[in-house]
């Protein structure tokens, strides 16, 4: 929604600006080229992740000062605090580093990123860097087209640097020319109000451009051209520091709790540092002046003084907050607690039941039902169906001609939270029960253990076919969609009967009644082979679709078979003589095959 209004508005404002002022066009092009350069540089460095960078990160986080230095050095070298943050988050999420060193790296990255301002102020605005940009771009692009991954990485880094230089040159020229038309310095706001207003502008500009580097280079170019007041430029730099954390916070919304904590720590650091810098601005300006004299920076060299200010206030932030790192970590852990995955615990498997084999067998039977109850919604959602639909009297044949539909469901995480623990508990319990079980209870225990395994196999089979099932269920190609929907309908029918047999204990679902479904499933498999031949011969589906369908039909029929096997165990009579008779009359695989062969037409 926001994008639908925001993006066209930005386009309109930019288009109007380009029409009114060619210099504004040059400045905007400079920002665009600069940001493209940042992206290329990031991509280049990313080529080298998965090796050296990770090893260094892993080895350099045992001490706080090491983590901090790593953040400074890595960001200074790569000129991308976001890349360092992303790698840090990935390490944090994988449990390879703790939150405390991760925060120290991010604090260091804040200082490391200020080297960008030094480079731009010291070199970019004083030397004709566009002259260096051209050869870099040429060499970079040649390397990008090489086969070797490392060479391509170097190519992207060179191209990125070339584009950065080119972008800076564009911005510098744009502001120089802009000066002759409008004097932005006339809009300077003095005092505290100016400080607050320009901090907010700096924050907003960074959020819009998603890059504090881009904001800084704009500030420096404008400052070099005398388009903005020095005090206001300092406020803009503070704003850019705050803006970059808002970008990180927005990016962390989609990440896990570790990412959110790190972004929270980043926000806390930059926010507090920004507040301190605003509060102590007159004092800071004096310190910068004194330090500039010490470092030999000319009094009129405002861009270098701004770079110094940028580094100084981040350094102050580190000095103020690093001693409180433990407390910050505790605060973040309290504000953003990790949500424990609510794994399902066994309901019936008690220690006391193990003393009496019959009681243990009954508990095991109930727990297997419980497992089925948990697996049922996973299986239904895996087929893109609501559990209510499966349990209703809905005619699944209608599914075959269903229109395209998309689905989004994480079957793997559901398996992890809802089934895995329970399945493990059942396997462990059966193991213990078998140690003391009598010959009469051994068989039923083994059958129940097999039933749990088959159930999990059915979930896994649905998981494997789900990717294609979802994408082809949303396809415009009617033929492939219909075939996948046929598989869904067949499985939904089996699932419904399985639920009625295992959970509802419907007396109509028996070992014998399940033979009909076994025949239907086998019949559907034979029919699918016929359909597939027809569709391939008449080029109605692509080869990729055909192979997917072949693989997925195997998964689908395996899942159906497993579910029917589970139901045969759970819906069987508990009386062994009755069970024996039902099993004796039930049709074998070969007898079912013979029934299919009786009708050469197969299914209509």
């Amino acid at each position, binding site marked *: 929604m926001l994008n639908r209004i925001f993006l066209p508005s930005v386009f309109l404002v930019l288009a109007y600006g380009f029409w009114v002022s060619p210099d504004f066009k040059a400045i905007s092009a400079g920002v665009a080229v600069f940001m493209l350069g940042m992206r290329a540089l990031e991509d280049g460095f990313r080529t080298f992740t998965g090796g050296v960078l990770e090893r260094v990160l892993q080895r350099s986080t045992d001490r706080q000062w090491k983590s901090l230095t790593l953040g400074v050095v890595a960001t200074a070298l790569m000129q991308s605090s976001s890349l360092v943050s992303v790698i840090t988050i990935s390490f944090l999420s994988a449990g390879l580093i703790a939150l405390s060193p991760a925060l120290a790296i991010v604090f260091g990255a804040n200082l490391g990123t200020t080297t960008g301002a030094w480079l731009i102020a010291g070199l970019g605005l004083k030397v004709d860097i566009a002259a260096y940009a051209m050869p870099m771009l040429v060499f970079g692009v040649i390397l990008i087209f090489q086969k070797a991954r490392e060479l391509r990485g170097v190519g992207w880094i060179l191209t990125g640097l070339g584009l950065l230089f080119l972008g800076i040159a564009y911005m510098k020229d744009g502001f120089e020319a802009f000066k002759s038309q409008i004097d932005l310095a006339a809009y300077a706001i003095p005092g505290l109000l100016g400080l607050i207003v320009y901090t907010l502008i700096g924050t907003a500009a960074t959020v819009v451009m998603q890059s504090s580097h881009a904001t800084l280079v704009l500030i420096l170019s404008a400052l070099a051209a005398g388009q903005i007041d020095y005090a206001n430029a300092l406020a803009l730099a503070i704003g850019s520091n705050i803006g970059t954390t808002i970008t990180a916070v927005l990016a962390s919304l989609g990440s896990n709790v570790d990412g959110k904590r790190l972004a929270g720590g980043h926000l806390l650091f930059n926010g507090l540092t920004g507040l301190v810098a605003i509060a102590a601005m007159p004092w800071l300006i004096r310190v910068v002046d004194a330090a500039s004299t010490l470092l030999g920076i000319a009094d009129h060299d405002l861009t270098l003084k701004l770079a110094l200010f940028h580094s100084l206030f981040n350094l102050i932030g580190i000095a103020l907050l690093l001693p409180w790192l433990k407390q910050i970590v505790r605060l973040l852990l309290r504000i953003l607690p990790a949500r424990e995955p609510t794994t399902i615990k066994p309901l019936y498997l008690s220690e006391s039941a193990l003393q009496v084999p019959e009681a243990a067998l009954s508990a095991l039977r109930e727990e297997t039902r419980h497992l089925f109850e948990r697996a049922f919604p996973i299986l239904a959602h895996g087929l893109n169906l609501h559990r209510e639909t499966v349990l209703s009297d809905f005619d699944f044949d209608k599914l075959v001609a269903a229109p395209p539909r998309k689905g989004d469901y994480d079957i793997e995480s559901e398996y992890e939270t809802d089934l895995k623990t329970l399945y493990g508990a059942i396997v462990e319990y059966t193991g213990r029960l078998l140690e003391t079980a009598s010959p009469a209870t051994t068989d039923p225990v083994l059958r129940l253990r097999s039933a749990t395994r088959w159930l999990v196999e059915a979930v896994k089979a649905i998981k494997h076919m789900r990717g294609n099932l979802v994408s082809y269920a949303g396809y415009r190609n009617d033929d492939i969609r219909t075939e996948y929907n046929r598989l869904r309908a067949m499985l939904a029918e089996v699932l419904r009967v399985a639920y009625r047999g295992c959970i509802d204990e419907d007396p109509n679902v028996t070992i*014998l009644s399940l033979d*009909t479904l076994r025949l239907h499933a086998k019949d559907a498999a034979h029919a699918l082979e016929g359909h597939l031949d027809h569709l391939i011969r008449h080029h109605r589906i692509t080869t990729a679709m055909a192979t997917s369908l072949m693989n997925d039909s195997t998964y689908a029929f395996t899942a159906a078979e497993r579910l029917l096997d589970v139901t045969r165990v759970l819906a069987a009579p508990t009386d062994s003589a009755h069970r024996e*008779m*039902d099993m004796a*009359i*039930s049709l074998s695989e070969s007898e079912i095959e013979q*029934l299919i062969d009786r*009708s050469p037409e197969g299914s*209509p």
Partner: protein
Amino acid sequence: MTQKTHTMLKRLRHLIDRDREDKKVKRSHLREVLSDLRLRQRKLERKLAEHPDREKRHKLENELAVVRAQRTKGIALCRSLK
């Protein structure tokens, strides 16, 4: 007849009786199942005669074939238990 032989004969009779009892239970269950299957078969035959839809008919035919095959197996099993 010694006491020992008497005990052995008693045990043998008990075993045979248990087997007989077991068979009786199985036969009785089989009769119930076969009766249900016969009813189901008739119901399916009636349904099949009424259903014009080709796809539904095919499913009913499959179901009927399964019930007939199960009945055949059941009857043979019931006879073998006599």
